C-alpha cells in the first residue's frame, strides 16, 4: 500500500487550461496517472486533448467529481483565486486537495484552514510539489503523480518521504532510487507558514502503512512542525527515521525563498530542530548528500530491510 493516493486514484486538475497546469497534466498522463477531469470555469464542455487522452473539462469541481468519480484535486490556480479553488474542492467533498500554487496570501490560508475544520477534505500544500506514489513500470510509470515532481526519479518500494521543499525531496528520492531503494509515497507538504497537512500527519500515516519500512523527514527553519513530529516519533514510531533540516546558515529574520522559512526565535533555528531530532532518535543527515545514507544507518541499527 501507499498513503494518501494509490495508482488507481482518480484525479481532477483545477486550472487545467493554464500553461502550468496543462504542462503538468501532460506529464502526469505520461506517467500513467488517472487524470479523469479538468476544471476551468467557463470552459465546461470542452476537452483537454493530449496523445490518446481526451480529458473532459467542467465548470465546477462538484460537477467534475460527480461526473467522473474523481476524489482528489490538483490545484494550479493563480494565487489570487487559489484559496477559493481549495474551498470549492472542500465543498465538493473531495478526499484530498493538493495546492501547488505558490504565493497565496497568508490571510486567505488562515481563513481556508478555519473553514476546513470538521470537513472531510484533507489539504496538501499550498506551495508544494505535490505527492507521488510510484508505479511498478519502467521509471516508476503506472503510478499516481499529482503536482510537479519529476516522476521518473522514483521507484516503487518501501520508504516514505515527507518534505517542505520540492527540490530537496527530489534530491532525497534520487539518492534512494540510485541505491535501488524504492518509495511507497513521497509527500511535499509545502513551504508556506499556514499549510494543510503537517509533517506529523504524514508521519502518522507512514507509521500505520505496513508497506512503509522507513521514513525520511526533510524540514527547514521556521515554525515548530518538525519538532512536533519528532516528539511523536520518539513516543510512537518504531520504524527507522532519517531527518534533515535546511537553513543552518540562514540569517535570522529573513525569508529564505519559502514564505515560511524564516527564523523567528531561538526555537525554530536549524540547530534547535536538529538537536530535537537527535534527542528523539532520528538519524540526522549531516549534509543533503547524506539523506539516503542516513536512513540506511537508521535501518541497519534497527535491523530493518528497506529494499
Amino acid at each position, binding site marked *: 500500500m501507499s498513503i494518501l493516493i494509490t495508482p488507481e486514484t482518480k484525479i481532477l486538475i483545477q486550472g487545467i487550461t493554464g500553461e502550468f497546469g496543462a504542462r503538468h497534466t501532460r506529464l502526469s498522463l505520461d506517467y500513467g496517472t488517472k487524470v479523469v477531469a479538468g476544471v476551468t470555469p467557463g470552459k465546461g464542455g470542452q476537452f483537454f486533448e493530449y496523445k490518446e487522452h481526451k480529458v473532459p473539462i467542467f465548470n465546477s469541481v462538484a460537477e467534475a467529481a460527480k461526473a467522473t468519480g474523481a476524489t482528489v484535486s490538483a490545484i494550479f490556480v493563480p494565487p489570487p483565486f487559489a484559496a477559493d479553488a481549495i474551498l470549492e474542492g472542500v465543498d465538493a467533498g473531495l478526499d484530498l486537495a493538493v495546492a501547488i500554487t505558490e*504565493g497565496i*496570501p497568508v490571510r486567505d490560508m*488562515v481563513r481556508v484552514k478555519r473553514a476546513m475544520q470538521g470537513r472531510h477534505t484533507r489539504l496538501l500544500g499550498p506551495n508544494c510539489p505535490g505527492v507521488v506514489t510510484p508505479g511498478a513500470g519502467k521509471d516508476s510509470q503506472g503510478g499516481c503523480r499529482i503536482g510537479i515532481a519529476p516522476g521518473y526519479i522514483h521507484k516503487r518500494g518501501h520508504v516514505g518521504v515527507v518534505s517542505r*521543499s520540492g527540490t530537496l525531496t527530489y534530491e532525497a528520492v534520487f539518492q534512494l532510487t540510485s541505491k535501488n531503494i524504492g518509495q511507497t509515497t513521497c509527500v511535499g507538504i509545502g*513551504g508556506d507558514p499556514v499549510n494543510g497537512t503537517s509533517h506529523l500527519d504524514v508521519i502518522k500515516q507512514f507509521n500505520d502503512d505496513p508497506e512503509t519500512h522507513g521514513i525520511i523527514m526533510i524540514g527547514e527553519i521556521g515554525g515548530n512542525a518538525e519538532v512536533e513530529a519528532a516528539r511523536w516519533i520518539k513516543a510512537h514510531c518504531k520504524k527507522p527515521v532519517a531527518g534533515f533540516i535546511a537553513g543552518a546558515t540562514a540569517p535570522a529574520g529573513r525569508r529564505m*525563498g519559502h514564505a515560511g522559512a524564516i527564523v523567528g526565535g531561538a526555537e525554530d533555528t536549524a540547530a534547535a530542530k536538529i538537536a530535537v531530532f537527535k534527542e528523539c532518535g532520528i538519524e540526522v543527515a549531516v549534509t*543533503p548528500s547524506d539523506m539516503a545514507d542516513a536512513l540506511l544507518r537508521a535501518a541497519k541499527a534497527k535491523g530493518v530491510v528497506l529494499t
Partner: protein
Amino acid sequence: MNIHEYQAKALFETFGVPAPRGAAAKSAAEFDAALASLPEGPTMVKSQIHAGGRGKGTFTNGYKGGVKFCKTKAEAKEIAGKMLGETLVTIQTGPAGRKVQTVYFTAASDIKKEYYLAILLDRATSRPVIVASTEGGVEIEKVAHDTPEKIHKIFVDPAYGLADFQVRELIFQLGLTGVEAKNAAKLIRNLYTCYWETDAAMVEVNPLITTPTGDVLALDAKVSFDDNALFRHPEIVALRDLNEEDSKEIEASKYSLSYIALDGNIACLVNGAGLAMSTMDIIKHFGGTPANFLDVGGGASKDQVIAAFKIILGDPNVKGILVNIFGGIMDCNVIAQGIVEAVKEVGLKLPLVVRLEGNNVAAGKATLANSGLTLVSGDTMADAAQKIVKLVAA
C-alpha cells in the same frame, strides 16, 4: 515588506489607533513646516530607518542616539540636522549602518506606564495572535525568556474575528481600569482591524503607553506586510522605500530570482528554496562561507541564469561560485547551455563548480565539458561543495 514608523503611524491614524502627533521631514528645508504642525514644548526627533535599536545606535560621524528627546522645537530642529543624511549603526543594521533619509518629529508624551502590544500569525494554530505585556519599552524576547508569565496571548478565531470578551480578558491581564481600560480596548480592536485589513505580517507597538490624563497611545510602531498579499494593496506598495533594500536584491526580484546577500565569499546559484538553503549549509559544513542565498526557481531559464551571474558578480566579496541544479523536469542539457552562455557573456574569471543532476544529465555534463570553459564538475552536492571550498581557499 517593511515600512517606516512615520508611515505606520499614518496608517494607524486611518484605523483609529491613536499615536502622539507627528510630522516627517525628508530635507532640512522641511523641518520648519513639519515642526509648525506640532504643539510647542518637548519634542522627540526620530531617525527613520527599517531597523530596530535606533535609540541606542551611533552615527558614523560619532553622534550618539538615533532617537532624541528635546525640550523645545528649536532644539529638535538642531538635532534633526545632525541625523538627516547621516548613517546610523544599530544592533540590527550591521556595521555598514543605514543612511537616515527621513526624520520624524513627534510631540513628546507624558508617560505613566509602558506596555507591549503586537499582532502576528501564530503558526502552531494558524490563527492571528495578539501578544501583550506589562513590560513595555524593552526587548520582548528577553521578557518572554525571563518572565514568561508576563506575556499574555489571545488567539483570534478568523471565522468570528476578535471577540469583545477576549479584548476584556487582555485588558484585565494588563491591569488597566476605568478610562484607560476603555481607551485601550478601542485601540486593541482598531489595531486588530488594521492588521487584518491590510494583510499585515506583524504590527508591533513597543511601547504602548498610558498618560496621566488617561490616554492610551502607540509611542512606536513597527509594521510589516505579507508579500504575497501586496497585489491587492497598491496603497501599501506605494509606501515601499527602495533605499532600505539591498540593490542586488531589488535587481534579483525583477527576474523572479530570490536573492539574499550574506557576508561570505562563495556565491551559490541553485534551483529551489530548500536546495538553495542547504547548498549554503553544505558550503559552511566543508569550511567555506556562503556569499548569498539564490533560488532561480524551478525553471532556471537562460535569461535568469545570466541575470543571476551578474547579480552574484556585483558582490565584491565573491571569490568563487557554486552552481547546484537538480533538473527534475527541465532538461539538464538546456540548463548547461544556459550556464555556458551566461559564463561567456559575463566573462567569468572566478573559479566555478557546477553540479548538475537529473533529466538528461549526461548530455548536460558533456556540454559543460566541451564548452572550453575552465569550470569544474561536481558529482554530488558534497563533492561540489568540497571542490569550491578548496578552489577558493587556494
